[in-house]
């Protein structure tokens, strides 16, 4: 059966629906990085060792907004809340929803003024809680 890609999700930040530039939204669920290395047992035998790096287990959501007054107000509010923001990602085409708790807007946002100028926002948070 053909599957449908996630292309038109709804983004809520602190219970407010956010209008963002289409196709600019990215997320990382915060499952982190893992690695597998080999160790030798001698005589040509090896065994793999699996490492799970907790240091990399941070959720991430990034998107762009057009440079508007609302974008500036939202940015000010998000920064003021520190890591007390909550981001909800809801995919309209499926039952997928994700929550990124204790999110902080971490990047420095440069507001460029002009025709179709955008401002990037990046949040880091607890690993996502996913509901499918």
């Amino acid at each position, binding site marked *: 059966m053909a599957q449908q890609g996630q292309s038109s999700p709804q983004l809520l930040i602190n219970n407010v*629906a956010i209008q963002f530039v289409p196709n600019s939204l990215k997320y990382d669920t915060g499952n982190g990085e893992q690695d597998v290395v080999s160790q030798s047992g001698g005589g040509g035998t090896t065994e793999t060792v699996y490492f799970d790096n907790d240091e990399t287990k941070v959720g991430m959501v990034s998107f762009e907004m057009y440079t508007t007054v609302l974008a500036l107000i939202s940015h000010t509010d998000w920064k003021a809340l520190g890591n007390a923001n*909550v981001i909800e990602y809801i995919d309209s085409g499926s039952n997928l929803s994700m929550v990124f708790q204790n999110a902080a807007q971490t990047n420095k946002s440069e507001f460029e003024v002009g025709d179709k100028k955008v401002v990037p926002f990046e949040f880091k948070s607890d690993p996502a809680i996913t509901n499918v």
Partner: protein
Amino acid sequence: MNDTPKKRFTYKLLEPISIAKNGQKVDATEIEISAPSFKNMHERGYIKTIINSTILDKTKDLSSEAIEKAEKIIEQKEEEQDDNDNSVEAAQMMMVIYAYRTPEEINKLFDTFYSLLIKTGKIDGEIITMPLIERIEPEELENLLGEYIVNFMIPSVMRQAKKK
């Protein structure tokens, strides 16, 4: 009758909805709504129009004895000043509105109410937004609108009627 306008009322949802609060997603049930102010005159005006026309339409169908009986009941309730539980009156008010108003008027009534909720309501201390309203069960929204009318609008209509 208690002539002091009510400033706010609270409504407890039977089905909690999840909201973002203090960095976490939590279940919330308690909605607090403040009385409409100068900033909400448009919304308040429309709801009052609906109530007045509904009451007028309904009284046309009632005999004079029934109207006298209803007035006596209202006076008795005012004397008791028992305004903590309006759930029966709220449900009855909604039934009458559904009976006498057109579907278009009812749609506009709910849109007006949502606008009021966003401007004057909080849920567990957080400002109500449209995405949160969409999570509330339809029947609870009807109950909430009924409570809003009974707590704020009907007393205002009654106070104005008494001045005539």
